[in-house]
């Protein structure tokens, strides 16, 4: 099988097809620290795309409570277990080998595409088809915490892990919300698995789609997408998946008069955790250096946003700012070895990073470029022994053509309602 370069793993990796890249890639950054699990994104998705007969169980966007939640249930436990069993004890990262080609180190384990050869499996990638029951509860385990007090009081139910549990100095129990859509992977498991070649990655934006006229419902995509985002529809007998609201990405929504827009789930985010965009791909197939693009800045320049389970090997294009309150080992399993670096920066952000973080969910137009204009210093403190200075800088977002589409300040403006209109909005 061909070898392809996977920047998240810092090495060449096995894939079913030759390496090929779109002109631009759909990417998003989710800040897990900000999410309140209101599920507004989930409903924005649901009311837009999966409101019909046969789609009742489909949540192309979902928010699950970690560590116990999952949609479908246990999806990540199951695939991680299969990955481990295919290469016991060997799926490790070598973080000493960092370089330009391996910004988070080198993954020395096997991916879902490399595991079948290890265990003599006759398919493109390891995987499984979830049961009907596993699809039924989109946030099973909601707000169920994990930690010392909790496990002691309910030993044998959740988290009965006999003293091996993680303990944090300040928070004895923990959970966090994981927001998920299709990752529009660079090397999609679904696309590799499809015996009909009915799944394709768009040249213009890297969005991964199932051709509904070619699909015959073989469910190999359901089986071999490790993130379980293709879903089978019983009424049509074929499979469907997140389409990244591509008409909005294309700028076809009349509301913005041709400006490219974020997906529905991004635009609806109440907690301001989401920022979505498109990054340029250079002629060599790598991300073109573009730190003025907020996506590139957060993911590649500052390495604050990290891929979800990069070890699976699909090069997912959804990126997460890991939660500060979660045991590092758990986060590292989920987001790779870049977790410490990410949280260190996020906890004590400098002026640029703090500025870009203000752009989340401020406009539903895609921000292609950002700029910071300096403002006065307004606050100073120490965070874990590090000096933090806050300036009321202004951050400006631009559309593809360079036109200003959003302008925000670090400090939120304070509005006083005039006395003569106490009830006015």
């Amino acid at each position, binding site marked *: 099988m061909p070898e392809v370069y996977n920047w998240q793993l810092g090495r060449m990796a096995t894939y079913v097809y030759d390496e090929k890249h779109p002109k631009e890639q759909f990417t998003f950054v989710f800040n897990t620290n900000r999410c309140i699990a209101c599920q507004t994104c989930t409903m924005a998705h649901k009311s837009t795309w999966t409101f019909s007969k046969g789609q009742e*169980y489909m949540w192309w966007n979902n928010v699950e409570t970690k560590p116990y939640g999952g949609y479908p249930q246990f999806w990540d436990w199951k695939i991680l277990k299969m990955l481990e069993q295919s290469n016991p004890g060997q799926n490790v990262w070598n973080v000493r080998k960092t370089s330009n080609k391996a910004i988070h180190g080198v993954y020395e384990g096997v991916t879902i595409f490399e595991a079948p050869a290890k265990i003599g499996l*006759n*398919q*493109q990638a390891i995987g499984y*088809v*979830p*049961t*009907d029951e596993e*699809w039924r509860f989109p946030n099973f385990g909601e707000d169920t915490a994990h930690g010392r007090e909790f496990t002691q009081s309910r030993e044998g139910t959740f988290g009965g892990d006999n003293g091996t549990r993680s303990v944090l100095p300040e928070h004895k129990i923990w959970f966090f919300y994981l927001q998920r859509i299709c990752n529009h992977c660079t090397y999609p498991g679904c696309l590799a698995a499809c*015996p*009909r*070649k009915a799944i394709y990655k768009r040249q213009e934006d890297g969005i991964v789609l199932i051709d509904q006229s070619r699909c*015959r*419902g*073989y*469910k*190999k995509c*359901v089986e071999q997408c490790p993130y379980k985002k293709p*879903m*089978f529809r*019983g009424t*049509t*007998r*074929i499979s469907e998946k997140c389409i990244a609201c591509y008409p909005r990405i294309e700028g076809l929504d009349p509301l913005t008069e041709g400006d490219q827009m974020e997906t529905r789930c991004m635009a609806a985010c109440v907690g301001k955790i989401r920022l979505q965009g498109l990054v340029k791909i250079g002629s060599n197939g790598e991300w073109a250096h573009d730190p003025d693009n907020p996506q590139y800045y957060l993911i590649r320049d500052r390495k604050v946003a990290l891929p979800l389970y990069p070890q699976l090997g699909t090069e997912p294009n959804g990126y997460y700012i890991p939660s500060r309150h979660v045991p590092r080992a758990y986060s590292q399993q989920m987001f790779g070895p870049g977790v410490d670096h990410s949280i260190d920066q996020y906890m004590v952000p400098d002026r640029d990073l703090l500025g870009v973080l203000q752009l989340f969910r401020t406009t539903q137009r895609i921000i292609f470029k950002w700029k910071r204009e300096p403002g006065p210093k307004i606050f100073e403190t120490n965070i874990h022994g590090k000096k933090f200075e806050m300036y009321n800088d202004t951050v400006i977002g631009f559309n593809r053509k360079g036109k200003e589409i959003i302008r925000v300040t670090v400090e939120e403006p304070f509005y006083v309602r005039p006395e003569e209109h106490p009830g006015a909005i």
Partner: protein
Amino acid sequence: MIQKRMKPFGLWTVLLALLFSACSSNVEDCLQDGSCGPAIQMASHDGSLPVDPYDPFWDAGPVAVEVELGPQMITNPKWPNPSTKEVTVRAVKNSSGIAIMLEWSDPTRDSNFDHSALYVDRAAVMFPVAAGEEAPLITMGESGKPVNIWQWKAVGGERGQPGVRDNPNSGLTYQTIEDLNAEGYSTLTDQNQQDVKGFAVWKNNKWRLVFHRSLTNDNANDVQFKQSVLMAIAVWNGSNKELNGQKGIAGWLLLKLG
């Protein structure tokens, strides 16, 4: 293959090549060279075709041929151990049409496809579109050598594909019969013009399935039964999670028209 065998003979090469090209229209030669088999002798019938799988004609008229089904080990996902090992084949024609009956043991009727963990029973027959020419590979045809596939599923109503309403006593509401073409793996495509009909009944832990069609038609994508044709068979058992390349297969067989 043929060339290899002829290499030491020199002159024979030419003669044999002539012989083979002259006989290329006679598909039945494959029985002698072992590239097909067994033969299924088609019965003749004066009346209307026995389209009901339990029409008494099937048990009285045509010769039943037991065909062994093997694993699919050419393309991923490979399937080393299909659960259906044998299918019994019968065929009949009248002045205008042809009917083919497949019968196989299956203790479970899998006809619910409502969610992703379910799989349905399926079966198919495959013919070279150009019946008189050199056979395409068994790999669902090959580029430039299309095959015509008739597939049945124990579930109906897919994307408006032709669904067959069953008789109320059998318990099935819908089934699907599709008339398809392929030129190799990944290329299976519905025809715009659906010419095949069919119907299956599950009884006594057995499926009996009848496909029927006119002997000839004006559809260039369809096999034409003007002479004996090659035929391959596939059976999928839903309760063994069989789907796609995960099937039991047999082919090429010879469907003898004369």
